[in-house]
């Protein structure tokens, strides 16, 4: 915002005095001088990570991973996961599942009618989802953001 200070009349004459308090907005478009930038015609918008990582913003949520069971899939304790609820879970996807009212992050495998939630760490056994457990898939994990520093 630019403003030009005007002088206030004193003794009915205009005197030059700095720091007067009447401000008049000064709206003029910038006057261009010299050569135009040769890059101007090829300007593109900067890269946007959101655009790269998220295809359905209205259906995308973030969660933070806790624990070690998915280390083999490159998901470590404290990593940020991008969950897309608009995707239909396919066998082989890493999903955020709800098993008996609890969130759990596992690789979803469906072999015929059998549903398996597989960890990717030898220390943890796969979970076979049996028919009477309450089970659903909250969303598909599409990216994992891991901090390196």
């Amino acid at each position, binding site marked *: *915002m630019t*403003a030009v200070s005007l002088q206030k009349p004193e003794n009915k004459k205009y005197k030059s005095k700095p720091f007067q308090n*009447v*401000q*008049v*907005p000064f709206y003029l478009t910038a006057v261009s001088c010299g050569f135009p930038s040769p890059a101007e015609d090829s300007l593109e918008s900067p890269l946007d990570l959101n655009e790269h990582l998220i295809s*359905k*913003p*209205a*259906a995308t*949520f*973030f*969660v*933070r*991973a*806790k*624990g*070690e*069971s*998915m280390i083999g899939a490159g*998901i470590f304790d404290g990593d*940020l*996961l991008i969950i897309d*609820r*608009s995707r239909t879970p396919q066998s082989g996807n890493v999903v*955020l599942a*709800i098993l008996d*009212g*609890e*969130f*759990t*992050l*596992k690789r979803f495998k469906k072999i015929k009618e059998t549903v398996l939630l597989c*960890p990717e760490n030898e220390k943890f056994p796969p979970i076979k989802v049996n028919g009477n457990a*309450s089970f*659903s898939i*909250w969303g598909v994990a599409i990216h994992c953001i891991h901090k390196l520093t």
Partner: protein
Amino acid sequence: MNSQKVALADCNSFFCSCERVFQPQLMNRPVVVLSNNDGCVVSRTDEAKALGIQMGAPYFQIKDFCKRNNVAVFSSNYSLYGDLSRRIMKILAEWVPEMEVYSIDEAFLSFTGIKEEMLTDHAQKIRETLLQYTGIPVSIGIGPTKVLAKVANVVAKKNKLSTNCVYNLFENKNEDNILRKFPVEDIWGVGRKTAQKLSFHRIFTAYDLKYSNDKRIERTFTRPIRNIVKELRGQLCMELDLSAHDKKQIISSRSFGKPVFKMEDLQEAVAHHVSTAAEKLRKQKSIARAILVFIQTNAFKNTPQYHNSATITLLSGSSATNKLIKSAFCCLQEIYKTGYEYKKVGVIFMDLQKKSETQLDLFQMHDSAKDEVLMQVLDHVNATEGKSTLKFAACGIDPFWKMLSKMKSPNYSTRWGEIPKVNQ
């Protein structure tokens, strides 16, 4: 000729459903959400309804009952509900050519142009998509007018299992059977007082109203009621309001948790309300040219009563919190009287104008460049670090009158520090 088709999508127990999205263990448990200050029930799930918990029930009355019956109780978390609402409206907009966002959890959709036999199917697809994308269940009612779409919606909600949350009046050959069982006070746009008045005329159901005597209605009732009658008969009177207009005025007010006497305390509250309203003002890129401040005592209490308001006009308008607080204080100064037990205070910004459209006279004062930058920093910090991270000292450090929200859930989808942590 009438080929209009209107659908009303309305989220089921919206606030409770939002809480359930991020706490799946609540799925079959009764859930209620309380109003500001944890006053009374504003949202309840079917399980809570089945227990007999009434809408608007004061929390202190049902607190023990909730504990005994394993009811999950939440303070309202408007950041969470607002975010999910925004997502829902965005998804809906992809499904229909035109829609009117009617409230945080309802939208009228134009289904005109969709073949009659496809209507239910289309609504089911929308419902499934919303449930999958956001986790929020909705009910959809379809009819030739807004009023009938609303009736259909109520039918869908009351019979979730048999209708699968979609009810289409075009499929019903005997619509009047529904209207016969539909109490007049449940019709969209009929208030309690109107319902009372209608009952004097022996009009008790939507059916009675639909077939009421035109002349009598015309003589005794206002135009909105006459429009409702027409809409019940299938004549579209209320078009979808498609414009997403900026607010004409911005209000921020709240009752105190306990009585307030002192000027300084009122000032803190006023400063807080101005800050909240000014943030909204800047969001819609407007300036306010008038501020009204009001104070009132508790009308339900047997104490000396006083209420008053004052307005101040800002010559060239402003959206700078500091400037607005000063002006609001002038108003407060003018109306404050000692010796009263104040219950509520609030501010209203009026005469709003788009900043880009403001014309400045030669001697009008713009918000200074310094204020502009200050406001940008303020808004940025509060947007990224959470509400009220940065505020003016006039708002007080730990406001004693602060909202009670002891049982608020985290802002799962709008704050980095509060996103869900999931076990692997």
